[in-house]
């Protein structure tokens, strides 16, 4: 059976693109939204993204003495929560393909008095500049859907984790219930690009964000693809009726 790997690599929202183009198109989106990213998340999810992130941290149960890698987490939301929960004796590196997002994150850290508490690296989730078997906990929150080749990113996550290391992905997912899904789709089509226009003066980037959610694999598909690269104990938890989901697995 031929495996169709990385099918999303040819889609930028609903536009058909070459895989090589997709990475730079995504980079452009995040260059332009970086400064207003946090405000937009609040507006788009009515602040609920904070609850989702809090839930992710509760599932991780961070503690000291471990090595954390947060991927695509440039503005620092997940990393900061991990630091608060794990305390000072945890190594936390933040890798993002977009240096603008990292700059926003680093400034936010500085404002909180966290000057040397994180390692900031520009890097690609598909080709992490991280050695094999070196990470205890890998997190990726609202980043996996922007990666050009998801299966490659899953494989690289597996590579960098230590045996016993855990993978967590928080991402928009599929609302199963048809009635709720219709309401959610309507809301996102009608409001989100307009809010993008108002808040960030960038309707197109937010249009892309909605479309990228539609193209992202559903809960079961993502779980299956995690299993294919080797993760064990793969399971997911729906958040807000499946508007988002947290997938987890570990490296045996």
């Amino acid at each position, binding site marked *: 059976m031929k495996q169709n790997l990385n099918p999303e690599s040819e889609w930028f929202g609903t536009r058909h693109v070459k895989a090589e183009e997709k990475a730079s198109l995504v980079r452009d989106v995040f260059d332009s939204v970086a400064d207003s990213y946090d405000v937009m998340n609040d507006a788009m999810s009515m602040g609920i993204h904070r609850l989702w992130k809090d839930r992710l941290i509760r599932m991780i149960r961070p503690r000291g003495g471990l090595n954390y890698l947060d991927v695509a987490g440039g503005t620092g939301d997940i990393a900061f929560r991990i630091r608060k929960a794990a305390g000072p004796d945890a190594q936390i590196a933040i890798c993002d*393909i977009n240096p603008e997002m990292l700059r926003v994150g680093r400034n936010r850290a*500085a404002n909180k008095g966290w000057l040397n508490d994180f*390692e*900031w*690296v520009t890097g690609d989730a598909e080709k992490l500049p991280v*050695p094999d078997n070196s990470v205890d906990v890998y997190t990726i929150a609202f980043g996996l859907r922007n990666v050009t080749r998801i299966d490659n990113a899953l494989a690289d996550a597996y590579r960098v984790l230590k045996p016993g290391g855990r993978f967590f992905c928080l991402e928009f997912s599929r609302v199963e219930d048809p009635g709720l899904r219709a309401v959610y789709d309507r809301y996102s089509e009608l409001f989100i690009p307009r809010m993008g226009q108002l808040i960030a003066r960038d309707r197109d980037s937010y249009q892309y964000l909605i479309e990228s959610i539609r193209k992202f694999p559903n809960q079961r598909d993502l779980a299956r693809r995690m299993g294919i690269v080797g993760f064990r104990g793969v399971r997911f938890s729906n958040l807000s009726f499946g508007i988002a989901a947290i997938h987890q697995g570990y490296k045996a």
Partner: protein
Amino acid sequence: MTQTVDPKLLEILVCPLTHALLRYDVARQELISDQAGLAYPVRDGIPIMLPDEARALEDHEVKK
């Protein structure tokens, strides 16, 4: 903002292509992967570990 790379980063980063350890060239603010023949830039203290952004090393620059 810090201009130089945090030494801790040198312990945890490798070349994304070869996974080999990197050399830090302080003067040029680059992280060198001899194996890949690439020099990754450091901007504003943040290493840019993307092969697209790296500079190809001249022959004389590569340390065997």
